């Protein structure tokens, strides 16, 4: 098991009901983590509509999670015209 921190913003924070949590989870990819969390919490945003950052850098969903990583799922940003 590895310990990771997850931060939530915007709609995901509202749906999760918290801004940050630390989880002990099996190692795997960022994609697998989101899919598990989406199943658990019923997030309305699908993964293809999000980006993911680990330790404050955008990364691929295939990135392997390691001990101490901070993972942030990034909903579409504000836009506007």
């Amino acid at each position: 098991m590895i310990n990771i921190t997850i931060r939530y913003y915007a709609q995901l924070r509202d749906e999760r009901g918290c801004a940050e949590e630390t989880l002990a989870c099996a190692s795997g990819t960022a994609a697998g983590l989101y899919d598990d969390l989406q199943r658990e919490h019923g997030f309305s945003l699908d993964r293809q509509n999000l980006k993911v950052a680990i330790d404050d850098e955008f990364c691929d969903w295939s990135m392997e999670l390691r001990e101490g990583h901070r993972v942030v799922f990034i909903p579409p940003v504000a836009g506007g015209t």
Partner: protein
Amino acid sequence: MFTLTETPIDAAAAVKTLQDPAAGAAVTFEGWVRNHNESRNVTRLDYEAYPEMAIQEGTRILEESCERFDILNAICIHRTGSLAIGDMAVWVGVASVHRGPAFEACEFIIDTIKTRVPIWKKETYADGNSDWIACHACGAAVADSR
């Protein structure tokens, strides 16, 4: 320099920081909170940033603008927190020797910030409902963003 602030943006002070003896032009852009969006009456906007990445991505965009356009300096200030109608949400300023590149760079900066910098806004409507906009019906915005 890209900064986030929880307090009102002082545009007059910001434009002074652009000053350069070699500059012949300064172009600035102000984004304001308007009272409607897609035919709904908006009463308030809340901006939320992922601060570490917002500053990092915002700074990269300003650096890219200096590489792409013949400009002397570029600055952006973005508000976070709860804003009222008429408040300034974002300020962009660009200084250049001649005006053309400053206009182009200013447009590039604001367009790129809106697609790449992790700052979200929640609209609150006159009927009491609220929405994270761009969160509910997305896809295209993300596909284009990087």
